[in-house]
């Protein structure tokens, strides 16, 4: 068993309205960051978990995303794995 650092990136489905992103975008503009073209807001989950292999860790994380972490109807997710600290 080894400890893995998992990073789960969850973002709103393409085409779905992202009111928060919209609000942040216009806030950045009123702060004169005119170079910003778009903002999408998602969630970032950092997990530490024990697994015997990178594959095992990924499989577990994927399972968690489907069961709990991500909303299957409104969100997409990506999983990134690094070795534990």
């Amino acid at each position: 068993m080894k400890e893995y650092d998992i990073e789960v990136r969850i973002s709103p489905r393409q085409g779905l309205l992202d009111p928060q992103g919209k609000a942040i975008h216009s806030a950045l503009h009123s702060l004169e960051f005119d170079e910003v073209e778009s903002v999408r807001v998602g969630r970032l989950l950092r997990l530490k978990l024990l697994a015997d292999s990178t594959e095992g860790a990924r499989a577990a994380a994927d399972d968690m995303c489907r069961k709990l972490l991500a909303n299957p109807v409104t969100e997409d997710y990506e999983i990134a794995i690094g070795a534990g600290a």
Partner: protein
Amino acid sequence: MNAAIITFPGSNCDYDCYKAITDVLGRSARFVWHRETGLGETDLVILPGGFSYGDYLRAGAIARFSPIMDAVQRFAADGGIVLGICNGFQVLCEAGMLPGALIRNESLKFLGRTVHVRVENADTAFSNAYETGQVLEMHIAHGDGNYVADEDTLDMLESTGRVVFRYVTGSGLVTAAANPNGSMRSIAGIINEGGNVLGLMPHPERSVEALLGSADGLGVFASLDAHLSGEAVQATAGER
């Protein structure tokens, strides 16, 4: 007393503050739209509750950049009285006018109910109508009222009498169960070093009429009225 109530897009307690001051207390108040750059003739600025900019990103994070906020900062820097209620408290923290921050309630749930708070320092412009130790019943209605700050800041606030309101049981005891949102040291309201800027999560403007359940919050506005009309001894935190 002539209050300027700031209306941000998404503010929804501005009207309640207005009514508490005009109808109940019989003093004058007016609304100031967040796009204004001046406050006009006023001796009290209120940042009301609500969801400025939908609380998107972080509660109060976007509102603090509204044009009017420069004027509010200047007003406060000159010793002007500023009261931030709920979302207003969050704006004050985001703007650095009060220390610490308000994060998501420990329960992760929005909480709309009555709580008891104890007056920890009755020697301020905002609380002189109360007795220190007095227990008040007020409404809370927030999802991000969990006050956090580092230990040094917390110790400093405590030792200088800058914790003005604290969540307690009906009989005035500080307990985990009486703390609705996980706030460090059960802090419900704090004041700045100059004693002229106060932020609190409970809604005094909702507790100003017996018909609506409690009039305990009226004291906050009465305190300010007394303070501004010179009837109360001018007090700055830290003197105690």
